[in-house]
């Protein structure tokens, strides 16, 4: 992580409860000099920023958490970083605790834990404006004295106090680590020194106390010592047993000890000037926004707006990007001699880049709205409103937005799952989000529904085709819920997740922060997932292009005939008085149709013999029971680049040339296609089977790439692909075979 530099660097960790303005502080301190990665092997993001100056500072942004006792991965990482347990990572020189001044007690709980780690600590007392508004006046001096660490009051959202914080972080002399002042209940306190003693050869003195305490209460913490210090491990188990015999509530001892010390402290330094039970503005807003009737209604409207924006507002920009990519390809083609390299550049590289960039409008828009919801505090309310419904199927309230976003596209949807604090909820949401019908499936639905399903009206205003379209969306959604339920039941079972979610006061959104986050997320997408998407695009081009085969004799002969016809025609035109060049052009134009048809047939010939074509043939036996021939199978494989690609792939296979989604030409060709025995390849039943296959199958490398990025392993994307493709096959199989049995084929 350390960029090579000759100047001295200092490592500082930034920590705080969720929602205290930590990200705001981090961004203000480091500007755009940020690097985002993952902690090795886990989903937790590792964000480091650099503050340059006489003394360079690497600032590590730790995941927001309420406590350092490791009950979740985030807390575990936070603790391990602070104490220097993570492999390849030294302990920081200083910890900056961002604290919400309007919510001191709960925030200081974490501060006392960080102090106990033994690092020098600075408290950034943020949101002093909110505290003032709530009628709290905080005696900063008294707070500093009681805690024993410097306290810097600030309002990060107005950039107040950041300069002072930066100055303190840079000062040569670090603040003295503070003494521990709170006390454990005596029964528990008396067993700690023994345990500390056992850690003597493993940890510096200052951090032995908290490690001993952590191990006393947490099994996961203790486990890590089993091999490193078996004596300590055994000792802790013995001590636990003794405490249990005495009925000492040792697991809660730490929490009670800290709060018992904090409560009077906070009462002393934070003077309430208003009745704490008085209704605040935020309370009054909540009375409407979480009202039994208006609450869900308004939330529905908000969702509709987001959905509308991501679905339709992004479309013109996406179309523009697509047109731009095609235009750029044409430009390159016209400027370069036709060659394999040009093809690679245009169909592989430029298309690959296009495949990445095309997602940006949706990602930017969605993250704008998500940022707005998070920043105002409405996100927590939406989870509050929806939790009951989502909890039923094994998700939680926070899954609503990611799931609905996935109707537009699973990529931003999966990224939106970051707003879920509970890692298990987040993983399940990621796993089922791609079942929601994304907009890339829409052209596929449109083509096959328009081509093969009857047009008649049902129940007056509804058409059969409209209902079919709706059914596709419904099927995806229902399956997503079922999948979530099954995952929760059988894969992520064990202790039920704790919900406990803070409902922060409503705040005015800061657009700077929101824009910042939009850029941040988009960058993460382009850099991390983009690489995979780009690579796979090029790979798919290679698979569709190679091996090259020789053009068959009959086509060569045909081309010769056409050339001959052009010549004769040109000759006769010239004889009629035209200039030689004009005559040639005229003759070529006249034969244009024949040339294009031949070109298209040659492409079809090539792709049939390419790897993808061969793969289509190879998997045909597996796909036949679903009613798919080798062309559809090859189309499905190429659709891995993006679902809508199946249309252009089929167009190539059917020698149609370049076409639009609802080209009547392709539709007619599909309808006319026959097997050797004269039966049609496409019947309405095959169309339904194919539609269902597209609803359920994970036909999208970009989704896999983002799932890889968000879960930091290939395991989950692999599971995702397997279960979705398995489901798709199963459903299509049942529909096709069942339909045939009922005589619908």
């Amino acid at each position, binding site marked *: 992580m350390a960029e090579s530099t000759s100047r001295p660097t200092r490592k500082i960790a930034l920590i705080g409860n969720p929602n205290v303005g930590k990200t705001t502080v981090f961004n203000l301190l480091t500007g755009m000099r940020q690097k985002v990665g993952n902690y090795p092997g886990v989903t937790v993001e590792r964000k480091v920023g650099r503050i340059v100056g006489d003394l360079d500072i690497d600032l590590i942004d730790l995941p927001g958490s309420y406590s350092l006792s490791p009950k979740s991965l985030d807390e575990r990482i936070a603790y391990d970083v602070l104490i220097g347990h993570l492999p390849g990572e030294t302990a920081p020189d200083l910890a900056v605790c961002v604290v919400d001044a309007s919510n001191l007690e709960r925030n200081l709980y974490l501060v006392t834990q960080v102090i106990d780690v033994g690092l020098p600590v600075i408290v950034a007392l943020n949101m002093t404006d909110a505290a003032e508004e709530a009628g709290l006046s905080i005696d900063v001096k008294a707070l500093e004295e009681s805690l024993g660490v410097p306290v810097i009051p600030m309002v990060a959202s107005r950039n107040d106090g950041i300069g002072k914080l930066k100055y303190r972080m840079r000062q040569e002399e670090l603040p003295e680590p503070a003494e521990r002042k709170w006390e454990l209940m005596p029964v528990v306190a008396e067993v700690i020194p023994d345990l500390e003693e056992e850690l003597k050869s493993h940890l510096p003195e200052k951090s032995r106390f908290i490690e001993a305490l952590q191990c006393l209460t947490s099994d996961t913490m203790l486990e890590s010592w089993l091999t490193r210090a078996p004596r300590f491990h055994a000792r802790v188990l013995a001590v636990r047993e003794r405490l249990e015999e005495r009925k000492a509530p040792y697991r809660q001892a730490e929490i009670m000890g800290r709060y018992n010390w904090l409560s009077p402290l906070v009462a002393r330094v934070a003077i309430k000037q208003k009745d704490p039970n008085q209704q605040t503005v935020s309370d009054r807003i*909540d009375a409407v926004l979480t009202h039994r009737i208006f609450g869900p209604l308004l939330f529905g409207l908000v969702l509709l707006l987001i959905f509308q924006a991501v679905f339709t507002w992004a479309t013109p920009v996406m179309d523009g990007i697509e047109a731009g990519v095609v235009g750029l390809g044409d430009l390159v083609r016209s400027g370069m001699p036709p060659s394999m390299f040009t093809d690679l550049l245009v169909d592989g590289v430029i298309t690959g880049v296009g495949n990445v960039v095309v997602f940006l409008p949706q990602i930017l828009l969605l993250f704008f709205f998500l940022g707005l919801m998070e920043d105002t505090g409405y996100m927590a309310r939406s989870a*509050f409103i929806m*939790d009951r419904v989502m909890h039923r199927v094994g998700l939680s309230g926070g899954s609503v937005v990611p799931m609905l976003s996935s109707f537009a596209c699973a990529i931003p949807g999966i990224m939106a799952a970051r707003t879920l604090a509970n890692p298990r909820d987040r993983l399940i949401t990621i796993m089922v989000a791609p079942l929601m019908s994304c907009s890339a499936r829409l052209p596929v639905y449109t083509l096959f529904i328009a081509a093969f399903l009857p047009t008649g009206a049902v129940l007056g205003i509804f058409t059969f085709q409209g209902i079919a379209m709706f059914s596709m969306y419904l099927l995806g959604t229902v399956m997503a819920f079922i999948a979530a339920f099954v995952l929760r039941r059988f894969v992520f079972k064990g202790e039920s997740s704790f919900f406990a*979610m803070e*409902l922060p006061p409503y705040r005015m959104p800061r657009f700077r922060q929101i824009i910042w986050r939009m850029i941040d997320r988009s960058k993460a997408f382009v850099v991390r997932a983009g690489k995979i998407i780009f690579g796979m695009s090029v790979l798919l081009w290679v698979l569709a292009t190679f091996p090259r085969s020789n053009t068959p004799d009959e086509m060569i002969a045909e081309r010769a005939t056409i050339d001959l016809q052009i010549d004769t025609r040109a000759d006769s035109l010239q004889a009629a008085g035209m200039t030689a060049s004009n005559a040639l052009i005229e003759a070529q134009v006249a034969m244009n149709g024949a040339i294009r048809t031949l070109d298209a047939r040659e492409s079809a010939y090539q792709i049939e013999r390419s790897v993808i074509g061969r793969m289509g043939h190879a998997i045909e036996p597996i796909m036949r029971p679903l009613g798919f021939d080798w062309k559809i199978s090859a189309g499905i494989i190429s659709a891995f680049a993006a679902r809508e690609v199946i249309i252009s792939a089929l167009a190539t296979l059917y020698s149609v040339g370049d076409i639009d989604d609802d080209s009547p030409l392709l539709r007619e060709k599909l309808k006319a296609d026959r097997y050797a025995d004269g039966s049609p390849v496409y019947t309405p039943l095959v169309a339904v089977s194919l539609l269902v296959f597209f609803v359920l199958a994970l036909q999208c490398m970009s989704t896999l790439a983002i799932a890889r990025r968000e879960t930091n392993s290939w395991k989950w994307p692999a599971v995702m692909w397997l279960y979705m493709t398995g489901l798709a096959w199963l459903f299509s199989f049942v529909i096709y075979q069942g339909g045939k049995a009922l005589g619908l084929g």
Partner: protein
Amino acid sequence: MTLLDLKPGQRACIQGWTTVEPPLRLMELGLLPGTDIEFVRFAPLGDPIDIKVRGYHLSIRKTEAALIRIERP
């Protein structure tokens, strides 16, 4: 009685837990015996609920609320 026996808008004081193993997660968030607590409202669909402790709002599910033993002043 537990937190669930309160009506929206009522206040009480936490006495302890209805289980042997106390929910440490809630304790860390400041819900300790002796802490004042207000049941603010139900979510529109009846679950979870909104409570106020130590000056901030927290949303917990009813199953969690049922763990909290309280006494009305």
